[in-house]
Each structure stands twice: as structure tokens, then as C-alpha cells.
């Protein structure tokens, strides 16, 4: 086996040194009836070339040359080449959680840089080292708000990503934490402020909204914050599209921000690994879940970095920890850090503006087709928009696929009231040609008999 660095003679020598007659002797602690004696029924050992052929064939079956207007929490952006070359350095790739600070300063400093960038972008004071993804991050943010306020109810906007809401439901299931769902305004797609005001009470720990929300609409964060704060609840803003922060005002009025940083240079990879992160106001720091890196000095006064405030964490606090999270998404956070360094202060704005322009053109072009109409035009969008068509999406989707285009995703699977409505996303990698081609297909609806 090519990964195993031992010759048969060396194995024998080691066994002799141990004083075991055979390797089986070392497994005798396993009761005989539980010893597995046959071969595992898994594919036979393969050569590297065979492994690559297998996965290439799988990749080819997935079809690679389609234009795509899919978004909805997973976004296609250009990934600068240096990201993969840097994160594949063995010193990053094959190192563990930086518990031994002296020999993990590289990881620690990079996380400190990540925390700084996320805090800068979100307008929060502090950010952690990462969460599994945006959905679990949002759920953990709600639990955090519960600890901060000592309250036990959450108010959640229906315009939060439906899968994130499901994850939240799972996380809260045994916490006796009822959630109230607040709908959206049909003109704007924003959370219904009147309903929100009615739903927030003195028992509300947190109000959770997403902005840009699931429909791509930017929420009125200052107004929502005021409603939450008036009743002493915390406002959690979830950000599923991190690139929006290049042009969209950060939710500085929020108390906690849960962000999915996948857009920062992380491959779609069929939905993971992605990179959640929680940022917050400084006063809530001690209730944050997850790892934190802090700056300190060593015995000679040199600047260095360590994991800190670990008394919040499971390895110290066990059942009283702020979360059970241990392994996080460190390498993915490093990808995001490199991405943000590549684009930098000006680049992230320029990139976001390109997204805005593509989506604006796509929305106008698609809506100009017969039978098509934009929903939720009463509020600003980032790079996603909702299109309603007279023709059933299933019909035109098929025609689009024939042209090697994946169109918007149908919303009725989560919002039954939104019939024939589809959510489209146009990032900087979508071309005008692709948009025009999609529009042409939409326009070509068969004339009804």
C-alpha cells in the first residue's frame, strides 16, 4: 500500500521488539466473536491513475459547460488562482487546530487577519474563527442571543433562507425556544414591519433577518433594529452573500451578524465545505460560540497570537460550553482571507458593483420578455431577483437546459404562494451573451392554442 512507509522486515522487527508473535496478537483484546475476518466489501485497491479516471468520469457526468443563474445561498464567483496554490501548502493543509501556539503562528496570524477583515466588512467589533456554514452560524447566533438576554423566544423572518430556517428549527428543537415566523411584504419582499413589530415582545431574545434576503432584497436594517431594541431583543442579521458587503451598507445596527463567506473564493463543491462566521458587538464576546484568536506577547515581549477565551468552549466547559463546536472550517476561512487580500479595499467594491450591474441588466432583460414580470421591485436588490412568468417554470427550464443554461430556481418549493416565481442570480461571471440567450428562450414560449 503506497501510503504506508514500512517494509515487511521492519514490521517483523517491530513486532519482535514489542514481544508479539504476530500482528493478530495486538488485536486479541477484541473479543473473537467481534473480530472481522473477511475482506471489507469495498472496491479493490486502485492505482492513482484509476482514481483520477473515476472522479473525472463522475465530474463529466455532472456536466460542466452550462451557464448558470443559480444562487439562493451558494454563489458562483471567480476564484483567483493563488487561493488554491497557497492553501495547498502542506504547512496550512496538514496542520491541526493551533493549540500549540509556538508552532502554529502561521495559522493563528491568518485567522487573526480573517477576524479583522470580517469585523471590518460587517461593521461589528469582533468576529470568530469560523462556524460550519451560514445556516449553523445563524442557529448558533440565536442560541447566543438567548444566553445574552436570558430570554427564550425568537422571531424569524420568512425571507430568511428556508434551509437556514430548517437548521434553526433543528437546533432549537429541544431548547424550548418557540419561534414566531414573520411574513414579507408583497410589494417589496422585505420583512413585514407591522407584523414584526407585533411579534416582538418583552420575551423575545432575538430577531433574525437575512439581508440581502432570500429574494435578494436588502432589508431596512435600521428600522428592524429599532423594533428589536425597543423591546430589549437582539437583532441578528444573516448575510448569505458576503460579496454584497462591497456596496451594501453593513448592518451596523445589528448586535450579531452571522455570515456565510463562501462567496469569498470558496468553490461551490455541491454545497460544502463552506465557511460560516459569527461577528458581534464587543459586549457579547463572552457568549460567542467557536474559536477566537487573540493577540498577545511572548516571554520576550514579541507579538504573537493564541487561541483565547477558551473557557467558553467544550474542551474546558464540557456541558456548560457556549457550543459543542470543535473542528470548524479553518482552511476555508483561509481561502476567504486570501480572496479578500487579493481584491482588497477597492476591489471588493468594484467586484460588488459588477455583480450589481450584471443583475440589473439580467433583471431588466428577462422582465422585458412577454409574460415575464419582476416581483418585489419596491426595495433595492443586490444580485438576485424574483421573476414571475406566465408560462410554468418547468416548461421554460427544460428549454433553457436544452440551450445549456440553468435558469432561476423555483420558489414554490418553499413558498407555495409564489406560483411561477423563480429566483435568479447574476454574478460577475455571468456574461451578457448568456443573459440574452436566456431571455430569448423565455420569449420563445409556445403560443397557447
Amino acid at each position, binding site marked *: 500500500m503506497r501510503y504506508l512507509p514500512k517494509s515487511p522486515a521492519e514490521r517483523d522487527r517491530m513486532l519482535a521488539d514489542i514481544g508479539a508473535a504476530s500482528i493478530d496478537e495486538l488485536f486479541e*483484546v477484541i*473479543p473473537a466473536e467481534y473480530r*472481522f475476518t473477511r*475482506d*471489507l466489501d469495498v472496491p479493490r485497491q486502485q492505482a492513482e491513475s484509476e*482514481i483520477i479516471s473515476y472522479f473525472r468520469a*463522475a*465530474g463529466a457526468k*455532472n456536466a460542466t459547460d452550462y451557464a448558470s443563474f443559480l444562487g439562493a445561498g451558494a454563489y*458562483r464567483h471567480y476564484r483567483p488562482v493563488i487561493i*488554491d496554490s*497557497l492553501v495547498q501548502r502542506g504547512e*496550512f*493543509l*496538514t*496542520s*491541526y*487546530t*493551533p493549540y500549540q501556539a509556538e508552532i502554529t*503562528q*502561521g495559522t493563528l*496570524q491568518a485567522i487573526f*487577519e480573517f477576524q*479583522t*477583515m470580517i469585523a*471590518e466588512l460587517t461593521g461589528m467589533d469582533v468576529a470568530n474563527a469560523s462556524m*460550519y*456554514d451560514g445556516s*449553523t452560524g445563524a442557529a448558533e447566533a440565536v442560541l447566543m442571543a438567548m444566553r445574552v438576554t436570558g430570554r427564550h423566544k425568537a422571531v424569524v423572518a420568512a425571507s430568511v433562507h428556508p434551509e437556514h430556517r430548517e437548521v434553526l428549527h433543528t437546533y432549537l428543537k429541544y*431548547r424550548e425556544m418557540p419561534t414566531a415566523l414573520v411574513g414579507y411584504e408583497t410589494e417589496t419582499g422585505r420583512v413585514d414591519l407591522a407584523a414584526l413589530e407585533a411579534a416582538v415582545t418583552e420575551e423575545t431574545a432575538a430577531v433574525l433577518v437575512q439581508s440581502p434576503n432570500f429574494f435578494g432584497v436588502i432589508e*431596512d436594517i435600521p428600522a428592524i433594529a429599532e423594533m428589536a431594541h425597543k423591546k430589549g431583543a437582539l437583532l441578528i442579521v444573516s448575510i448569505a452573500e458576503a460579496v454584497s458587503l*462591497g*456596496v*451594501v*451598507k453593513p448592518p451596523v445596527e445589528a448586535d450579531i451578524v452571522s455570515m456565510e463567506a463562501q462567496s469569498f473564493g470558496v468553490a*461551490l*463543491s*455541491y454545497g460544502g465545505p463552506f465557511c460560516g462566521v459569527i461577528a458581534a458587538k464587543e459586549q457579547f464576546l463572552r457568549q460567542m460560540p467557536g474559536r477566537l484568536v487573540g493577540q498577545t506577547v511572548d516571554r520576550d515581549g514579541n507579538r504573537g497570537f493564541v487561541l483565547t477565551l477558551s473557557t467558553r468552549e*467544550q474542551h474546558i*466547559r*464540557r*456541558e456548560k*460550553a457556549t457550543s459543542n*463546536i*470543535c*473542528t470548524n*472550517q*479553518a*482552511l476555508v476561512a483561509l481561502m476567504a482571507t486570501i480572496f479578500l*487580500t*487579493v*481584491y*482588497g*479595499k477597492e476591489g471588493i467594491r468594484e467586484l460588488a458593483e459588477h455583480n*450589481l*450591474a450584471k443583475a*440589473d441588466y439580467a433583471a431588466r432583460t428577462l422582465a422585458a420578455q412577454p409574460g415575464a414580470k419582476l416581483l418585489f421591485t419596491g426595495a433595492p436588490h443586490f444580485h438576485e431577483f424574483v421573476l414571475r412568468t406566465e408560462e410554468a417554470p418547468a416548461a421554460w427550464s427544460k428549454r433553457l*437546459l436544452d440551450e445549456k443554461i*440553468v435558469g432561476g*430556481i423555483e420558489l414554490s418549493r418553499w413558498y407555495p404562494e409564489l406560483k411561477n416565481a423563480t429566483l435568479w442570480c447574476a454574478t460577475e461571471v455571468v456574461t451578457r451573451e448568456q443573459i440574452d440567450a436566456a431571455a430569448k428562450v423565455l420569449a420563445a414560449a409556445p403560443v397557447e392554442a
Partner: protein
Amino acid sequence: MAMQGIGKVRAHQTQNEGLVFEKSSPGKKAYKLPPLDVPAVDASSLLGEAHRETLAALPELSEIEIIRHFTRLSTWNYAIDLGMYPLGSCTMKYNPRVNEFVARIDGLADAHPYRPESLAQGILEVIDLLQRCLMEITGMDAITLQPAAGAHGEFTGILLVRAWHESQGNARKKVLIPDSAHGTNPATAAICGYAVENLKSNADGGIDLEALERQVDEETAALMLTNPSTIGVFESQIHRIADILHAKGALLYMDGANMNALVGKARPGDFGVDVMHLNLHKTFSTPHGGGGPGSGPVACKAFL
């Protein structure tokens, strides 16, 4: 230092490298966007109040500086690629490079999770084959690959336990956890709404059967057991442990962090485990990446 020539690798320790922000100066760029092929928009009039006026203080650097910055930082890390990394419980084994290569193949790396299934057949086949392999390796009947790490797998597994007990009419109140367990075990039981009851280890560091017998009752949902245990010892009384639990309707959860001692030699499904998680980032060689990402599949018996 009396090191007598013992020891080996030395990292690039003397290089000074400031924070990326300290190296920044306005006007430097490491990116270039293609020309816009659609009309440019005025962001501030499109977004109105929601427009961002002050930019985040991100660094501004050229590409070579970025390469050097992160390369220098990397030299301050120890890594499996440099030498033995005997961090117990973490299984710091070689992370094969072909893994990295195939994970980046076109069609796999760029697949959107909402793409139509007809365009995702390749990845679904990969998922299916991995599931079948892991079920065979663990001897279990069903599996979910969704959890993102070991602790997340524990959470999933204990929720499963709870759902099963609920379906039997009583969610039960407590989870037994040996004092030798990893911190994520009690933290997990707590977030699933269970009281954590400590189980003292016996003189061999294993499960004390008498204590177990005393502590398991009709309100016990499960025992969270690490096997081999965190002292690296196989619980040779595992069948008795399972019997004691099952007699009271409680389940046996196995923390599979130490599965690297068992693959191909013994299967949890054969020795009485009802539900367990694996760590693909330990036993199955996916890289730890400085703390993540991981993957914590949960496998269980058919009745669950």
C-alpha cells in the same frame, strides 16, 4: 541545549512578517476585473440608503506580496508534511495529494447544490459509493453524510436517539458519559436537552459495569462511548455494555473518533453499537487544514 543531534526539521522561524494590513498601501492591486459587458450602474442611486459609503479597511497589496505573506506565515506552522504529528485522538495521518487533486476536478468542484439532479449524477454516484463503503466499514444499516464535523455528528446522532425515544413515547432525560470522554460529548448531550450524568471509569480506565448497571434506568436515553476509549483501549466488555443499556431500553452511541484502530478489523455494527459518527478528517485522511473543515457522517441501525 543538550540536543546531541537528535531531532530534525526546523521551520523558517526567523523571518519577520507583519500583519497583512501593515503591509498595505493605497493604490496597490492584486486583481483585475474584465471589462463590464453590460451597462455600468450607479450603485448609490440603485441602493439609496442601503449604499455603503465607507469602504471596509481591507489591505491593498500586489500579488507577489500576497504570495510572500501567506507563504511566510505558512513557514511558522508545523505540519504532517514536515514530520510526525502524534496528537492523540486527532489521527494526524498522511493527507494524500490525489485527494486534493480529485476534489478540484471540473464538474465536482463547481457543482451548484441546487442544480437539477440530471446534471448532478456524477456527484450523487460519488456520494452513494462513499455511503456504501462507510456502511460496510462500520457494519451499520444507514448513514447520513451531512454533519460538518465530529461534534456536529454527535449532535445529529443524539437528536436521532431522542427522536427514536420520542417515537417510543418517552424522550427520556439523561445521557451517560464516561469521565474519559471528549468535551464535545457532554456539550452535545446538553444541546440536545439531556442532563449529563457522569460515569466513573474503572481501574482499567474502561467502563465500570457495576456503575453502569446502577446508573442506567428508564430515563437513560443513551451512553456515549468512545471505543477504543480515549486511553486507546478496546472495551472488551462491549457486548455486556450494550446488553445492560438495551435491557433498559437505552441506546449505545459510539464516538468514532478512534475508528482508525478498527477499520477492517472490527465493526461497531457487529459489537452492539446503535448509532455512531465517523470523522472523515481523522480516519479517512481528509486534511485538518489548521482546524477544519471536517466531516462527521452518522451511521445507525435500521430501527433508527
